[in-house]
């Protein structure tokens, strides 16, 4: 009883810490990569004992501490209650979807089989969509409670953008759900462990290439970073919905955006890139195509899975950082046109074609 409870706690803490750690490292990568793209060195002012690599320590430790301890400026005329709760809602709703993200296969310790997923939920995909859609309230209320016109404009832009792109994202997910025939993310990852024709890993991207692109674009739009950063849009709206935020509250808004980046990476990995699966690695070892098995201990297989999931997640996080520093911001009409006239019809067509193909071929992948 107590052991079960402790296992639950460890699973929850592990996935949350994994997400937050990638957020922290992502912050450092973001500085270094943006510097690389803009042809400067970047994050090099913290060389401790003459070692420039300590810039990492600066970003991971000194930055958050400084940020959290800054003065919390309270403006008169704001709605105190909602001004306080808006960033909390934003951050919490960005973190809770990680509960259903499977970060590894079953871990077998003695006679205990531990499913490496904090909350094995039958309707995992719907849970993710529900929590992400609630995240809008943080933005809406943050801007409104600030009693600032620029902030309110940012909120209005943000909520319209998030609702628009949620629809395309949800429809892109329908294609994946049709292919796997389940809403459970862990089952989806298991389905991706097979091989097509004995050599090609059956990852979701092969069945849903269009679905992947639609989901990824929708996900990048959800995280409200360039090229979709119109809610923030510092050249027009000061800082959009978090104009009137400072100190720890501002930190929470900033972190919520980056957690969403990591969440999109985790979901893309899980849905389209095999989750924790490593090609040719079965629970008993590597099966080299064309015969031959290299035995690997079961515990090591599980750990390798967790490492593979982390690395894939990191890859998509870095990809999103590169996107952010490469593309310029959309104009608002372009943003709406892309969402409603671009992604939505393609996503609908993707659903119809996928369903038709499945009917024709008979059954799931």
């Amino acid at each position, binding site marked *: 009883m107590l052991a079960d409870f402790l296992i639950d706690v460890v699973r929850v803490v592990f996935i949350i810490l994994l997400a937050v750690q990638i957020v922290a490292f992502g912050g450092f990568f973001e500085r270094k990569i943006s510097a690389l793209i803009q042809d400067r060195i970047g994050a090099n002012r913290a060389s401790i004992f003459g070692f420039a690599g300590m810039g990492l320590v600066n970003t991971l430790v000194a930055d958050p501490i400084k940020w959290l301890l800054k003065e919390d400026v309270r403006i008169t005329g704001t709605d105190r209650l909602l001004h306080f709760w808006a960033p909390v809602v934003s951050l919490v709703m960005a973190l809770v979807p990680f509960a259903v993200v499977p970060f590894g296969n079953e871990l077998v310790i003695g006679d205990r089989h531990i499913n490496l997923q904090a909350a094995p939920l039958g*309707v995992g995909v*719907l849970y993710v969509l529900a929590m992400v859609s609630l995240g809008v309230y943080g933005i*809406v209320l943050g801007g409104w409670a600030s009693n600032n016109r620029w902030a309110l404009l940012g909120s209005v832009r943000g909520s319209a953008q998030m609702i628009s792109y949620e629809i395309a994202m949800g429809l892109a997910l329908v294609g994946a759900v049709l292919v796997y025939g389940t809403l459970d993310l862990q089952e989806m990852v298991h389905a991706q462990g097979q091989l097509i024709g004995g050599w090609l890993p059956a990852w979701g991207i092969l069945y849903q290439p269009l679905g992947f692109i639609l989901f990824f674009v929708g996900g990048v739009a959800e995280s409200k970073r360039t090229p979709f950063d119109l809610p923030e849009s510092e050249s027009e709206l000061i800082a959009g919905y978090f104009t009137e935020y400072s100190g720890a509250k501002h930190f929470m808004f900033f972190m919520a955006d980056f957690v969403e980046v990591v969440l999109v990476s985790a979901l893309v990995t899980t849905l389209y890139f095999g989750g924790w699966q490593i090609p040719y690695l079965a629970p008993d070892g590597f099966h080299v195509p064309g015969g031959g098995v290299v035995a690997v201990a079961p515990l090591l297989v599980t750990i390798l899975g967790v490492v593979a999931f982390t690395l894939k997640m990191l890859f998509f996080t870095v990809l999103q950082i590169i996107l952010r520093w490469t593309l310029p911001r959309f104009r608002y009409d372009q943003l709406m046109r892309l969402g409603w006239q671009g992604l939505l019809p393609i996503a609908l067509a993707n659903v119809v074609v996928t369903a038709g193909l499945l009917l024709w071929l008979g059954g799931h992948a």
Partner: protein
Amino acid sequence: MSAVLFLVIAALTVLGAFTVVVARSPVYSALGLVGTLFLIAVLFLSLDAQLLGFLQIIVYAGAIVVLFLFVIMLLNLQAELETLSAPGLVAAAALGGLALAGLVAFGVVRTPLGAPALADGFGNTVPVAELLFTTYLLPFELTSVLLLVAIIGAVVIGKKRLA
């Protein structure tokens, strides 16, 4: 789910519904509605109706009430300055409330106490989808036509304003 948990959530749900009515600021009214809808979804979850619970959050709390808030913000509605006092409106609201209460009471009284237990997982995706696409196919499709009509109506009204 234990009875205690049910009572707590039910009480909070009623509190949320009460906020919708008595809050002076329209934004707080809308937030009360979000809370109520969210807690009803929790009640659905406790009854093993996971699909219904999460759909309720996605559709109502995550989309429809956001649009309410949107309208409230764009119209810049402040806390209400005058109370609703037209006698006709108050009478109609009272009548509607009484009728609804009567209907609910009627439903509660008519429900047999010893109803047979439902099968495990009746509220999950597969059983609900099966019912929806076999027994209740016609009502389901008719509802979608109704929604389509509403969408077309919204487009027509929107276009008229522009012209």
